[in-house]
């Protein structure tokens, strides 16, 4: 069953055609990655899904329900979490407040507490720093916080935008371990990533984007063994 189904999505930034008819879908429990060079439109796609950016044409369906151009706060309530590029944690709120704001849509306090406990368990570093202001965390910790915050709404689908950006390789591995773990817990994941090899190693299915279009999609096994990716990145051929 398709959790997310994007069809022929077209997005303009003013006159700039950022997405030129992109189709993509995420199955229940699936781990999908979207790779491609800078400026290919990956972030735009995520932003359009959650309503941060307005789409011009096409459709975005969540469990079959049209959600294109709804307000972000309405979309998020449906069970999608978006961990934005650049982490975007609230620097002046404490770690715990950041976490709680992730659970903003939850009405049930005991459930929020349960989620909080579970996520602290998952990210013990954050538990240690729960009283600290978000802005004082290191880059890796901020990324963890951003992911943990996304998990706080107990979403069904998580959109991750470049979680490895600006992090040291060791930390990147760590973050990816978490992501795999989250997927194992049953969450569907759509991961936008530059680090193609890593992304293709952990995900089930991959889409390759180039200048506003999906140029290739396949299972990650096949994509991995395909030189096209490397070529696209390093300009060979």
């Amino acid at each position, binding site marked *: 069953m398709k959790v997310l189904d994007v*069809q*022929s999505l077209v997005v303009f930034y003013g006159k700039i055609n950022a997405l030129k008819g992109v189709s993509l879908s995420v199955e229940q429990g699936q781990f999908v990655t979207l790779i491609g060079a800078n400026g290919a439109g990956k972030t735009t796609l995520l932003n359009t899904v959650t309503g941060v950016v307005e789409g011009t*044409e*096409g*459709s975005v*369906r969540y469990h*079959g329900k049209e959600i294109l151009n709804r*307000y972000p706060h309405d979309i998020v309530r449906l069970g999608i979490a978006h961990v934005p590029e650049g982490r975007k944690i609230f620097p002046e709120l404490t770690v715990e407040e950041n976490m709680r704001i992730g659970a903003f849509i939850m009405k049930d306090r005991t459930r929020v507490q349960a989620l909080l406990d579970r996520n602290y368990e998952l990210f013990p570093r954050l538990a240690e720093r729960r009283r600290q202001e978000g802005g004082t965390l290191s880059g890796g910790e901020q990324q963890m916080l951003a992911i943990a915050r996304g998990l706080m709404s107990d979403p069904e689908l998580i959109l991750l935008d470049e979680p490895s950006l600006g992090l040291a390789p060791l930390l990147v591995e760590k973050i990816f371990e978490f992501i795999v773990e989250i997927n194992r817990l049953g969450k569907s994941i759509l991961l936008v990533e530059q680090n193609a090899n890593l992304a293709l190693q952990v995900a089930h299915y991959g889409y390759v984007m180039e200048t506003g279009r999906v140029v290739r999609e396949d299972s990650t096994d096949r994509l991995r063994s395909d030189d096209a990716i490397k070529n696209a990145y390093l300009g060979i051929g």
Partner: protein
Amino acid sequence: MELKQTLRRIPTLLGSARAAMAAFSARYRMPLVLLLLVGIVVFPHVITGPYYIRVATIMGIYVILASSLNIIIGFTGLFSLGHAAFYGIGAYTSALLATQAGVSFWIALPAAGLVAAAFGALIGVATLRLRAVFLAFTTLGFGEITRIVILNWRSFTRGPLGIAGIPVPQFFGTPFTRVSYWYLVAGLAVVTVLGVYRVYHSRIGRALVAIREDELAARSMGIHVFGYKVLAFTMACFFAGIAGSFFAHFQRFISADSFLNTESFTIITMVALGGTGSIVGAVVGAVILTLLPEMFRFLVEFRMVLYGLILIMVIVLKPGGIVGVKGVFEKPKSQRKPWIVEKLTRKPTIPDATQPQGGTL
């Protein structure tokens, strides 16, 4: 249904009317300019009522003020909420020179401009490194300080007593009549608008607009951003000072009551209402906001309520101003409805697969 369609066509119709007008005026530009000049010359002889000439003269003062403020707000993208202070400085400089030192109007006029410009430069150097909004409030504070200094420094400015008996300017020995005042202010306004136009279309104007559009890119293109901001401020204050000098000699009595913060707000409103960044806009704004309160005189006590209401409505409905450069100071139209509308018209949340979705293969 038909009504709806008609309504929907209105913007298009307006747009084509506008385009037609633009084409017309572009084609007959020189004749129109001539017509305008003839209009200026003939006006006081056709409409001889002193009241109308006076209103037109006041309008001329505001055209100068709004056009000059437009250099700061519209071109350079800076805020100034203290323009009336420079207007006042010009007026007081000129009035004091004339009454205390017996200086001729023709010397006092440029002197007032220069003194105001000097203050502008000074304030500019001190404040223009600030971020936009802070700059606005510094100038607001400066305006208020200027007013209080005028009121407190009695030995120099006569404080609240104001300066009376400012002499009527003479033109080769002939004292000014109300028609000569009109010609002078019209001349000054034309010179100001032309000056602003020429500056706008010069290397300097391009630099100013570049700063408004993208300060970082402007800097990377070799534009000394700070210097040009100060320059813009100084130029604008010069014209404000000129307007002040004219006003002092026109009204022949000035007091701090004429240069309150509300006056700054009036000028800034003219710019915004007419169209921030548009040379014509500033003129149109000044014309409208001088005429509107006059036309509403019959309302007496309801006058300012209506004035406030119209102001709010125009700004809300057309934030870029009446003839603003389309889009510069407006945001793009959102496809989303305000949440309240959204809330009321929200469809049931049952997935509706039968609904055809455009764009799919």
